[in-house]
């Protein structure tokens, strides 16, 4: 089940009205406005899914102006998934829900090293072959981009399109 919910409440609290509470799972809040569908892509949901999934886009937010929210039932995120979300939405917060209660709440942190999550933009890079290696990128200072540790190619924009 997937709801795309147009959001027109005026405050952060009102967003709970937008989508139904979940019993167990994860709520990803404070996603940069418009990035929710990319977060879904990071979670590997590109087609149908058995779990309940709710997406709210461009919800008015006091702190951020506009934000997106993703709720997914019966799933907790791996560290790799959280790291990838941090790349496109560094202000995101991850709320783990168990029996309708927020059991854990944490911000995301841009990692210093990204392994296997990003495709090198350079078609001549050795990571774009059948070699038994994962791509490796270092995050440039201040998160200004990523540098491939094999070929030194740098990604500074449109990062989402390179996320595997």
């Amino acid at each position: 089940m997937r709801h795309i919910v147009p959001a027109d409440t005026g405050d952060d609290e009102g967003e709970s009205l937008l989508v139904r509470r979940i019993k167990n799972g994860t709520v990803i809040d404070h996603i940069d406005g418009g990035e929710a569908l990319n977060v879904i892509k990071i979670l590997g949901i590109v087609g149908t899914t058995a779990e309940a999934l709710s997406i709210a886009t461009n919800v008015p937010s006091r702190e951020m102006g506009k934000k997106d929210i993703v709720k997914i039932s019966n799933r907790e995120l791996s560290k790799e998934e959280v790291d990838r979300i941090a790349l496109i939405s560094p202000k995101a917060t991850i709320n783990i829900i168990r029996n309708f209660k927020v059991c854990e709440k944490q911000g995301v942190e841009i990692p210093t090293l990204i392994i296997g999550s990003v495709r090198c933009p350079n078609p001549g890079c050795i990571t774009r072959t059948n070699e038994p290696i994962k791509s490796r990128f270092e995050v440039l200072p201040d998160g200004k981009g990523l540098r491939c540790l094999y070929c030194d190619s740098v990604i500074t924009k449109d990062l989402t399109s390179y996320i595997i």
Partner: protein
Amino acid sequence: MHREGQVTHHIISIGDFDRSAIDRLLDHAEQIGKNRYDKNALDGKILAVLFFEPSTRTRMSFESAMARLGGSSISVSSVEACSMAKGETLADTIRVVSGYADAIVIRHPKEGAARLAAEFATVPVINAGDGAGQHPSQTLLDLYTIRQSMKIDGIDAGLVGDLRYGRTAHSLASALSLYGVRLHTVSPPGLELPPALVRSLAEKGMEIVVHDTIEEVVKDLDVLYVTRVQRERFPDSTSYFNVASSYRITPELLAGAKKHLIVLHPLPRVDEIDPRLDASPHARYFEQSKNGVPVRMAMLLDVMR
């Protein structure tokens, strides 16, 4: 490159070196160049020379360097001639060859291939060029050649030619940034230094000046480094010849240059340097090529001892 906590030493990128590591290696090469070295230093050692791309100078000078130190070389000359033609990965090839040799020198068309090789090898790996990426041994011999004529610190160096795809230009520019060198570039439109490299050099504090013609800068230069403009970068041969001729270095062009200016080229040259320049005291490209041997001897000793 000696890496902390790592038993095996590799030389993959000039970016892995700091200034003192470069100077130490060049000092050693200088001693070797004066014939002060142990001719049996690598007696009984075997160097695997894995070249998956054509090469004359780099390959032969590594083999020559190994022989002069008393060691021997085994080689593969192309993808077609080895198991990679049967679909074997480079990773597996490297694992296997690690069992046959005491060090591996690799040239490969894919960028980052040498870095991969270093991950899978159990012996030292030296990068002899990976695609449009790194070519550290060329850079070290370029620096060595400059050092023979002048102190590198604070000079004005000009890079001319294909600066976008030319790996020798990228590596040299990075190395020169460690010496407070002012960099001048002259290249055909579309073949300028990659923006990411320019940004990285600028962050290291390097002053970079872009020029439209060689004429406007040649009188200020201490070093003129010429690279080949490759024909395949142009849509047709007419546009190639038009561009190539405007980047040709001639004795007339150097008429107003500093007396001590040296002209370098990683070779092979095609049309970019007039053969009449060969007899000029400015011309150092054949000396530069010859310097590949002592520099590569120092590199082999660095990783194998």
